[in-house]
């Protein structure tokens, strides 16, 4: 009986003990670095370095739920988008109608898909399959999708372990072909916190095309209630 108790206790302890040998939890660190609950975003779509279109967006987030409100250009003003992890909707002010959107559809004529912008947490969608120390503080991480419902099967991230932020992200299809790359830039705000200030998305299948996103007034926390991130609220 005593032996059974000791074995049971060891099993329980082993299950709860952190695995130090595996190193830092990079996926959670990335999620944390990219997590903001509010930002004013300007999105610019370029082809051959010529600006084709732009959007000005107010971005709200609460955990895995995200909402975007379009404030410019005038033709898109009043449009809203909401993602609640398994659903995506768009509110059209012209007709006061909400339409449901496919999750993998391209985001309003940009190099990003709806899922890229309304992205879920890395730690939920991916598992770390490898890490390689690069120069000084840079670590290259290799991520694999947990299931086929995730947009990209493999992701390689260049992680700055000193600042605790991702610098570059490469997304691959199931065939192994590079589909998209994202470059991140950061800025320190007045409160001393490091926030993402720029995101450059390149569609590698269209070499001359890129989407730039500028982030301003970022906040780690905002006060909108959970009901603000529901379909009913999107219509109000």
């Amino acid at each position: 009986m005593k032996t059974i108790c000791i074995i049971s206790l060891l099993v329980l302890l082993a299950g709860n003990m952190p695995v130090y040998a595996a190193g830092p939890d990079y996926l959670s660190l990335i999620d944390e670095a990219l997590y903001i609950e509010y930002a004013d975003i300007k999105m610019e779509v370029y082809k051959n370095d010529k600006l084709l279109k732009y959007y000005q967006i107010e971005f709200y987030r609460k955990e895995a739920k995200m909402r975007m409100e379009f404030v410019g250009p005038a033709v898109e003003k009043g449009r809203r988008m909401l993602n609640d992890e398994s659903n995506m909707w768009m509110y059209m002010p012209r007709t006061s109608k909400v339409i449901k959107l496919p999750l993998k559809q391209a985001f309003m004529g940009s190099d990003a898909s709806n899922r890229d912008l309304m992205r879920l947490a890395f730690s939920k969608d991916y598992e770390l399959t490898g890490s390689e120390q690069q120069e000084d503080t840079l670590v290259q991480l290799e991520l694999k999708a947990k299931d086929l419902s995730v947009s990209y099967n493999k992701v390689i991230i260049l992680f700055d372990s000193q600042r605790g932020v991702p610098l570059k992200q490469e997304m691959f299809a199931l065939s192994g072909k590079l589909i998209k790359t994202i470059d991140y830039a950061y800025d320190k705000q007045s409160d001393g916190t490091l926030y993402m200030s720029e995101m450059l998305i390149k569609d590698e299948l269209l070499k001359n095309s890129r989407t730039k996103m500028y982030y301003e007034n970022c906040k780690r926390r905002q006060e909108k209630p959970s009901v603000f991130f529901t379909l009913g609220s999107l219509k109000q």
Partner: protein
Amino acid sequence: MKRLCYYVCAGAIAWLPLLANAQSHDLSYQVILESKGQYDDLDKGAFSATSRLYPIVTLKSDIGELSNSLQVEGSLVNYNFEKDSTGFSFQELYTRFSWKDRHHWAVGKKRLDWGSGMLWNPTNFYIQKDPFRTQNRLEGIFLLSYTYLFNTGSLELYVFPEKELEDFSYSLKYNYTGERVDLSLSFLSYRKHQQLGYDISYGGDLFIAYSEGVFRNYSKSYRVGEEGGLIAPENRSSKFYTEMVNGISVSFNAYLGARVECRFREDYLSRKEVNNYKKYMPLNGIIYDPISVGKCNLFASAEIKDLYDRFNFQLRSFFDVNSNQLIIAPLFVWKVNNFQVELSSMIFNKSLADFHTQTSILLSCHF
């Protein structure tokens, strides 16, 4: 007009003290100019022009957890550039109060957003869209509403006032959001009539499928008798009729998409009734929408678009199974930041309308 003035006054009275004590204000405005030229082959060709100006103003203010907004959307319209054919109306004019983002009250003239169908929305008792231009800014209706939001759905109560109390309509709607699924159930009481509705949609990675339908004990359409005589909607049997729309929209890739929608209306014309109806054309032509007189209608569209969403081409087709009428309606849309041009055409086969082709160009400017 009298009723509109009443709402404006009621809204203003409720608003002024709130505005005076508000902790924050937000005023936004927008102006949209739409000019449409249309040519059809009626009477050896007829050209018509419509110009619309929509001024839109939104005023929002907050006092603690109470927020309120005033929405005004006017419509100044002119037909064929004639001096005496200019008119003004309010598309929307309503006040809304919200408490803790969870309770919402609205009063005034407001658009209803019911139904997941793209072209046809049987659950929306009041608003019928133009299936050839689903993006039209629709006119609102007079209503009082209360909405309670909870984390997985909402409950909506509506009162649609009329001149006489006995003509008021009432509605209750429950909306639920689950994993990839939206579901709505609605009940509407209209004079002595009732309507029960459902609306369900499923969102996949690359497609959306939906079904929307009602069971109602009234009809809004005329019935055609054996001799071709017309029976008015109010004289039709008050048995329950079914109206249902099923559809699917697929996004194949960034360039290609397709949509199919089919509608069944039990109280519309059968093949035999369509033949009787044709005997009295064009006299009874105004009774029905010429694209869909029969019980069963199909819509299919294929869309090719630019990767950057600057332009798209849609090949749309409507088929009325009971009358065998086919309409092909190509549409080209070109967008540049604040401007949009739409070029569309309709070609009728076995037309029940007064014309066989119709072409239009529409220019929208947003400021």
